[in-house]
């Protein structure tokens, strides 16, 4: 059975904890052309806000590994992205990500799948919710 609104509400196990490091923050800030921002340097840096997407995307694997949904990363397009932060991610945070399917809309061969990924520390503190709409196009039989 392909993905449908019957799958709304389905959650996947939290990803393995990821430790945010000063080196990774510096690398990510440089990739945004923002290496000179002092908030991302020093002894106790915060991560650039959109670094949350890196940890959220790790939770997307739950979708692609779920054989019931019939989804493939190579047929998926990222349509929109929303973040709501409680506080910035910091060097030293141990973070895992939990994905829930929020909404599914099927239009012909395309499925619009909205997922919400909650990033939390291993102590249970919620840091950020990263919500994405992913458009999956099924192969159409000729």
């Amino acid at each position, binding site marked *: 059975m392909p993905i449908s609104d019957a799958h709304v509400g389905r959650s996947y196990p939290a990803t393995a904890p990821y430790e945010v490091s000063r080196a990774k923050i510096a*690398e990510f800030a440089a990739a945004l*052309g923002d290496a000179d921002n002092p908030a991302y340097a020093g002894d106790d840096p915060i991560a650039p806000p959109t670094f949350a997407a890196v940890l959220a995307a790790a939770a997307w694997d739950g979708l692609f590994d779920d054989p019931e949904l019939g989804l493939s990363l190579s047929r998926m397009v990222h349509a929109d992205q*929303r973040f709501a932060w409680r506080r910035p991610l910091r060097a030293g945070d141990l973070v895992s990500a939990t994905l829930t399917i929020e909404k599914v809309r099927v239009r012909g061969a395309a499925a619009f799948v909205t997922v919400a990924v909650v990033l939390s520390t291993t102590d249970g503190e919620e840091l950020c919710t990263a919500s994405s709409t992913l458009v999956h196009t099924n192969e159409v039989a000729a």
Partner: protein
Amino acid sequence: MSEMTAEVGQHLPALTRTLTRVDLARYAGASGDFNPIHYNDAAAEGLGLPGVIAHGMLTMGTALRVVTDWCGDPSRVLGYYVRFTRPVVVPAVGGVDVRFAGTVAAVADGVATISIEAMCGEEKVLGSATAEVRLG
């Protein structure tokens, strides 16, 4: 943390970034997103794209610099939304300019809503891009 002020209609300092293939390789490594449409022309064209395109999250992350450069402290950013409307095609030689601008769209309850524009040539590459910034 000191209080900031923002007025509806206020323009934030604009920013232009020239994106090259090296920038895409660097973002792929930093983010772990190695989708070949971001470095392999054949893979991109196979999906009907004109060529290698920038990661949407690279454009989204760079666009937020308009806000964080203005407010100074990225921890003031409470929320951020974009739609990915058009791909940013990055040539094999040279680069492509993406222009970013921001305007204060609303101020309420100590939070400013910033409307962000991202243009590549004459095309808007992000739609409905807005960020919420804590002023207090």
